[in-house]
C-alpha cells in the first residue's frame, strides 16, 4: 500500500515546498500546495524523495521540463526500493551522504554546488544507480519525447513513407540513381 503520495503540481519546482500529511488511510501524503500531479511512494520518506528529485534534475537538467517528469524517476526508484531492500539501503545512505557533503542539505544548495557534490561521488554505486535510473526512466517517458521532437512509434500512422521521411529541404535531393523514388503501391 502506498506510504506517500506526491502531488503532481509543480512539485518541488523549488525544492522545500512540498508538504507532508497523513492520509485518511493512515498513509503519509506528500504534496505541493498547487496539487497538480502526484506520484505514489511506498518506501521513501519526504527527505529522500525531495533529495532524489533534486539529484535527478541536477544530473540531467532540462530547464523547460517540469519536476513531474523527474518525479517519474523517483517513483521508479521507490518501486525498486520496495522490491529490493539492498536498493532501499543504498538510496537512503546515498541521500544521507549527499546531505552530509556540506553544512546545508543537498536540496538547499545551488545547482553549481550540487553539481560539484555529485562530481565528487561519481564512482559511488548510489550515484550510478540514480544516474542509470534517470537515463532509463526519464528519457523513456513518451511525454518527454515531445520536448525533444522525437515522434516515437510510427507504425500505427503508416510509417513515414508519406509523412516526411525525406522532407528535408535545406540540401539538394540526391539523384535517383543513388536514391530512387519511394514505392507507394
Amino acid at each position, binding site marked *: 500500500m502506498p506510504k506517500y503520495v506526491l502531488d503532481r503540481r509543480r512539485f518541488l519546482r523549488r525544492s522545500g515546498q512540498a508538504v507532508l500529511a497523513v492520509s485518511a488511510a493512515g498513509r503519509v501524503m506528500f504534496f505541493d500546495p498547487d496539487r497538480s500531479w502526484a506520484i505514489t511512494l511506498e518506501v521513501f520518506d519526504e527527505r529522500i524523495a525531495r533529495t532524489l528529485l533534486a539529484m535527478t534534475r541536477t544530473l540531467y537538467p532540462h530547464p523547460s521540463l517540469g519536476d513531474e517528469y523527474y518525479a517519474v524517476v523517483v517513483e521508479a526508484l521507490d518501486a525498486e526500493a520496495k522490491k529490493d531492500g539492498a536498493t532501499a539501503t543504498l538510496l537512503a545512505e546515498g541521500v544521507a551522504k549527499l546531505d552530509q557533503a556540506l553544512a546545508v542539505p543537498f536540496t538547499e544548495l545551488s545547482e553549481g554546488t550540487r553539481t560539484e557534490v555529485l562530481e565528487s561521488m561519481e564512482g559511488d554505486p548510489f550515484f550510478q544507480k540514480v544516474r542509470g535510473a534517470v537515463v532509463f526512466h526519464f528519457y523513456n517517458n513518451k511525454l518527454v519525447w515531445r520536448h525533444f521532437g522525437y515522434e516515437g512509434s510510427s507504425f500505427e500512422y503508416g*510509417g513515414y513513407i508519406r509523412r516526411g521521411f525525406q522532407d528535408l529541404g535545406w540540401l539538394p535531393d540526391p539523384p535517383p540513381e*543513388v536514391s530512387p523514388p519511394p514505392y507507394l503501391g
Partner: protein
Amino acid sequence: MAKFDLNDDGVVVVIGSGAGGGTLANELCQKGIRVVLLEAGKRQSIETFVNDEWESFFQLAWLDKRTTSGSWRVARDFPNLPAWICKTVGGTTTHWAGASLRFQEHEFRTATVYGEVPGANLLDWPLTLEELEPYYAKAEDKMGVTRTHDIPGLPGNNNFKVFYNGAIRAGYRGCHTGRMAINSRPRDGRTSCQQIGFCFQGCKVGAKWSTLYTEIPAAEATGRLDLRTEAFALQIQHDDSGKVTGVLYADGEGNQHFQRARIVCVACNAIESPRLLLNSASAKFPDGLANSSGQVGRNYMRHTTGSVYAVFPEPVHMYRGTTMAGIITDESGHDPTRGFVGGYELETLSLGLPFMAAFLDPGAWGRAFTRKLDLYPYMAGMWIVGEDMPQESNAVTLHPSEKDRFGLPIPNVHFDDHPNDIAMREHAYRAGRKVYEAAGAIEVWEVPPYPSTHNLGTNRMSANPRDGVVDKWGRTHDIANLFVSDGSQFTTGAAENPTLTIVALAIRQADYIADRMAKGEI
C-alpha cells in the same frame, strides 16, 4: 509442424534460429531432411513487435548475464552487456539493419595480402570469393537484397540526404542507399518498406528479411521442421568413438531433455556457440568439443566500430525511415597508405531518443550532455563498420565462478583493440567529421562503440586443423558430424556487415550436409 521423437537419431539438430541456423534449417528441410531446431527464445511476430526501443530490447535481446574484460570501452560502459544480439525465434535477424554486402576478394586472404601484422592472428580463409559467389547470389535472391537481381534501391531518408551531400562535397563517390535486405518493392509475399524507422525493433511490416517470417515458415511448410522454442542448449554429448549423439537442452520450465541426432549444427552466435562447445567438455574432450586447436572462443572479432553524430542548423529528423539508409564505400578497400590494413564502411544510423540518451556518451551527465540531447531533431548519424584484427587473446571464455540458472559457467568476453583497430577508428572518425562538416554541421561528436552487434571468429575456419575449429564447410575438424553454422566460423571479419555471408555459408553448408548424408558419409 512436425514433432520428432527425442530418440529419433535420424534428425539434424540445429541450435539457433537466426541468420545461420534459421537458413540452414530451411535449406535442409527443403532437401527432404528432418530438422529439430532448438531456439532459446520465444516466438514473436510482426504483430507483437513494438516501435519502442526499450520495450523491444526487453522483448528481443539476449539478456542472460555475461561478463566482460579488456580495455574496450564497452567493458566499462556495459560490463554485463558485451553484445546487443537477440534471444528470440529469428535470432538477430529480427534486430539487424539489413545491410547485405559481399566480402571483397582480398578479404578472404588477409594473411597473404596484409602480410605480417604484429599481434594479429591473421589467417587466410580456406575459401575464395569465387567459390562463395554462387551462394552470395542465392542469398541475395532469397533475402531480396536491393541493387542485386534487378531489385531497385531504397529511397533515401533525411539522414541519407545529409550523408550524401556531405559525402559528395567531401570527395567521396561511392555513396548510395545501400544493398539492403529490405524490400523496395513487394517481393516474396512480403510488402515493401514503409519507412517506419524501427528496423532494430523488428520490422512491423516484414519488409526487412528475417528468418522469423521467411525461412522458418517455409521450413515448417515442408512438414520436416520441429521448432522448439525456449529450448536452451546445455551440452552436446558424444559417444566413445567421438561422434556427437545429440543435445541436452532445458525447456521453458527448466526440464531437461536429450534430443538424439545424426548431425548437430551450432548456430548460437559467436558468444554462445563457443560457450556451448566449451561447456560440452568431457573426459574424452577435456578442453571442450572440437577444440584440439585450442582456438574455440579465440579470435573474437566485433568489427571496428564507432559512430559519428552531427548537429545542423536546420532540422533533420534522422529517425524517420530506414535506420541504415545509405553507405559510403570509398574507404572499404585495403590501402595501407592510410596507416592501417583493411578497410571500413560508413553507413547511416539513427537512434531514437531513449537509446540516444543511453549511447551518445555512456556515463555522461550534466548540462553539457543535456544540451546535446536538446538538439535531437537537428542530428544526423552514421556508423563505422571496419575490419578488426583477430587476436588470440580476444576471447570468449568460461567464467571461473559465475554460473547461469542451469549451473553452467557464464561466458566472459575479453576484448582489447589492436593498434590497427585504433588507427582505423581514428581515420573513420576523421572521415565522418569531414562528411558532416562538408554538409554544414555546427558540431560533430565521435561516439564510442555500442555493445557488439557483429560477433565473429570464435570458431574460425582454417585449412589446417591446427589453426582453427572448422573446415571450409563449417564442419569441425575434430568431429565429423558436428558443424558450426554462424558468424563464429569467420576466419577474419572483413569490412562488411556479416549477415549476407552467414546466410551464403549456411546455404552452401546445407548443400554439403545433404550431399554427405545422401552418400551415407555422415
